[in-house]
């Protein structure tokens, strides 16, 4: 399973990088979201325990590792905020350069 998870993360990462490098800026934004998904999965998989029950104090059995979960929680929130800023920058670029093609976004305009 772990090899499979590792492969999944890599494929997600590769897809994200590919999307990130495309000319269409909407796709670049999508790529960013995919890369952060891949990284969150990595954090989750890096947990020390293979959980059988959720990380609640009143549960009996091997709990899943709470620490990476808390980290992912924070990461999700922050990447959501960053994502919103990226999208509004996309809109600003669209107003300034009248395009969402990253190759046409160059030079300084007023």
């Amino acid at each position, binding site marked *: 399973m772990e090899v499979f*998870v*590792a492969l999944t993360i890599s494929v997600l990462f590769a897809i994200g990088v*590919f999307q990130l490098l495309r*000319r269409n800026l909407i796709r670049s934004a999508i790529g960013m979201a995919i890369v952060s998904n891949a990284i969150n999965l990595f954090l989750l*998989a890096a947990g020390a325990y293979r959980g059988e029950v959720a990380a609640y104090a009143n549960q009996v059995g091997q709990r899943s590792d709470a620490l990476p*979960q808390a980290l992912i929680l924070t990461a999700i929130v922050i990447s959501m905020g960053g994502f*919103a800023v990226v999208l509004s920058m996309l809109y600003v670029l669209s107003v300034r350069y009248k395009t969402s093609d990253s*190759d046409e976004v160059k030079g300084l305009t007023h």
Partner: protein
Amino acid sequence: MLALPIIACLIGASAGAAFTFIPRVRSIPSHALGWLLAVAPASAFTAIVLHVPQITAGDALTWRIPWLPALGVEFAFYLDGLSALFGLIITGIGALVLIYAGYYFAPKHADKRATGGSHAAALHGKPSLHTTAHQTNAHFFLYVLLFMTSMLGLVLAGDVITLFLFWEGTSITSFLLIAYKTKDEEARSGAFKALFVTGGGGIALLAGLLFAAAISGSTDLMTILSNGDALRSSPWYPVMLGLIAFGAFTKSAQAPFHFWLPKAMAAPTPASAYLHSATMVKAGVYLLARLHPTLGNTPLWFWLLIVTGGTTMLLGAIIGLRQSDLKGMLAYSTVSQLGALTMLIGEEAPTAFKALAIGILAHALYKGALFMVAGIVDHETGTRDLRRLGNLWRVMPWTFLICGIAALSMAGLPPLFGFLAKETLLAAELEEVLPRLTRIVLPAVTVLTGALMLAQAASLALDTFVTRPGVGWPAARHDSEDGRAHYALHAHEPPAGMLLGPAALAALSLIITAFRPEIVVGLLASAATAAYGAPVKVALDLFHGINLPLILSSTAIALGIVLFTLRSPIRSIPNARALNMNLIYDGVLRVLDRAADIATRTQAGRIRIYLAVILTAFFALVIAFGGLWRVFDGAALANLSRRLFDEPFSTQTALRAFGLILAVAASFVSVIIRRDLLAIIALGSSGLAIAVVIALEPSPDVALVQAVVDTLTLVVLVLALSRLPHAQRRRAEELNDSGIQKWNALLAVAGGALVTALCLYAFGSRPRTSLVTPYYEQNAKPLTGAADIVGAIVVDFRGFDTMIEITVFSVAGIGVFSLLRYAMKKRETAGLPAEGEIESNLAASSQRPLPPTISGIDGGRTSPFIRALGYVALLLAFILAVVQMVYGHDQPGDGFTAGVTLSLGIGFWYVVFGYDEAKQRLRFLRPGLLIGAGILTVMAGSTAPTFLGGGFFSPFDFGAALGLPLPEGFYISTSFLFELAICLAVLGAATLIIDTLGHPERDLE
């Protein structure tokens, strides 16, 4: 208090700033301002004078405060004879210059200047430097006082870092003063040239000083001065000396770096008089004199300084005589004099340092006076061209007298101070300790220089004030005869206050030698002693009997008179181009420009190429230093395969595999699908699939957050997409990037392979027991009262982290808001029809009447069923949010989920009812207020326990403390307040994002 003089100057500078920037006091007349601000340097002067008795008694004063204690750097001041001599010159001449500048910048009598001045300016081919009555020149005083502070700091510095700081300060203020006439191209290029040369020297100096500090073990000047033997015997000595000397030579305009100084004459004359003759250019001399006891007395030191100084001395004198501009001539004679001073520091004899101290003071006195006289002449006649001036003594007798005295001193004639300077200089060069060759060459060079200086001094005084106007003036341009008569008629004595400065300096040149030598003897002796490193006796007797120096001096005078009569033919010899350092400087700048061009060409200007380069470099770094080869280590591989095959097959595993496959497949669809909207939906599916994987971990809290955030992301993306013009989106979708796709794919595959290796390594080698998690598991319930361990970590164990996290999220919301507002303003100014700003819309739309036809997001009508669903959804979201907050510590769900859930309900309203109606119905929703309330709540909730016996962020049950009857399982505790705060802040930020992104784009298409 050694800092007193510097503080006095700083106060003066602050006053100068006040007069520059506060409109109400700007109208003060400039001469009054000069007198007023001169109080600052005058009091600094007094403060130093009060220390002089102590210093002449042989004491050195120090004063220090720790500055960067970790680096051992102190803000230290140090006052001995050398510092005091410079300090007195800086503050004394500084006060006089400020008074002088007040009159220099005073508006003229319009009747006189209107004809003569403009005529003169037109003839001279330069813009008139005089200002109109309403312009303020207070910032000139500000710059001068800032310079004075830096310069004083430089000579009083007791720590090499402090010294360097002030050294750079003088370079920068000098730049500001040279470029004072900002509209003048020559002033700007001259200022840049000066900054380029002295700034470059400053960097070398810093390196050299750091060498010295490293070898002696401290940046403290005293320590460095007392470690001379270690420094001289260090293998780094030549490098260190080279760097320090480079800094000093550039600053003190030594050949071949002298070329910036004549160009610096574009500065207003008071600044030239002060910075570029009396003080700043002597900073290099000061530095060399200061470091002589510790770095000097080696063959390298001797030859470096003797050759450089001697060359500069002769070169400056030769070029100086060829100048026909008053200030140009003064600039080159300054270069020459600086060369002489540098040469003296190279000589290892007490007489040389006696000559050095006398030379510094004599030069400052006569050159300061001459510069100010040049300014007066320029001010009164509108020209500085020696070929056109003349006969002014009739109308300006007092100015002539002052100029005459100063020029006699410059010429080195008795009984002036300058004579003494030249006599001691010659005496020093004849010292027995010098090598035989230099004992012949140096006096010869000095006699020649002395003759040239005498010719220049005579030219300065006589060509300006006595000779018939027009000597050497080409006959072809004789039509200016009428104009010249014009100046002679209109020029008259400047105001008495303007004469004060040069008069005082010239008088001192005479008084010191002829009448009262005792006022400076002690100070000069202690300055020479400090520079030499051993006691030096100084006596200022004019006549020592007929000796070799006197004979040489007389020879120089005779030769000088001959040269003076030949000045016109000498000036008309064409310039030798090879000698011109300016050409080399221009060449260096051209090379730099070319290099910059080449560097610019590597900037492709394409964002994705930069990104690709960054990613490639990042991957390369991971490969090079990540130690990934360890994956293929036998033990790790065995470990990995054991884990792989150990896993028992279960339904859960199958489900997780299914979720992962789904996530990858959906992501892949987002790549290949053509329409952006569908790609976004694919991304949403991928995110939900990951939520499933997380839920199977099992990790319900995170899965919940992932699901709601994924949905919110989807909503925000769709909203953003709908803002982009339709045609533009189509164009972007049809983009043909087949040419680059190959490379992108290659990079993506490389990244994927790298991450695979990284994951396998990480998973294969990580420990199977955590050090941290058990602590959380055991203490979550007893310490925080929460069964939900993840929730306990987020709002309690790592509460501070979470507080910052929601602040970041809120800031992101505000960032989106301001970016979009900016973009909308941009659209307005771009000529597109304005649609009103968001913030006015926030208020206005709540009062606007409902549109006649209620419409959804794209103008289409929504069915009553969907509308009813909207009401229900928001209500349900609200209930859900409350439940999640109240019971979140024992159940899945937390404040963040609650906030996002509510935001989603609100987002749904925007979709169902359309922007205007949603806005109208939700007018109670104030995003800014919610964010503020959220962050304030978290701060209050986390601070409150400190007053109730706990600590900052420690858990506390307010409900129990107040004895409130609450339902079972619900506690008003710090965690609850935290959840509430997160919910409020997230709701605020998310609605702000939805609201601004969902703002209709009626004008597009």
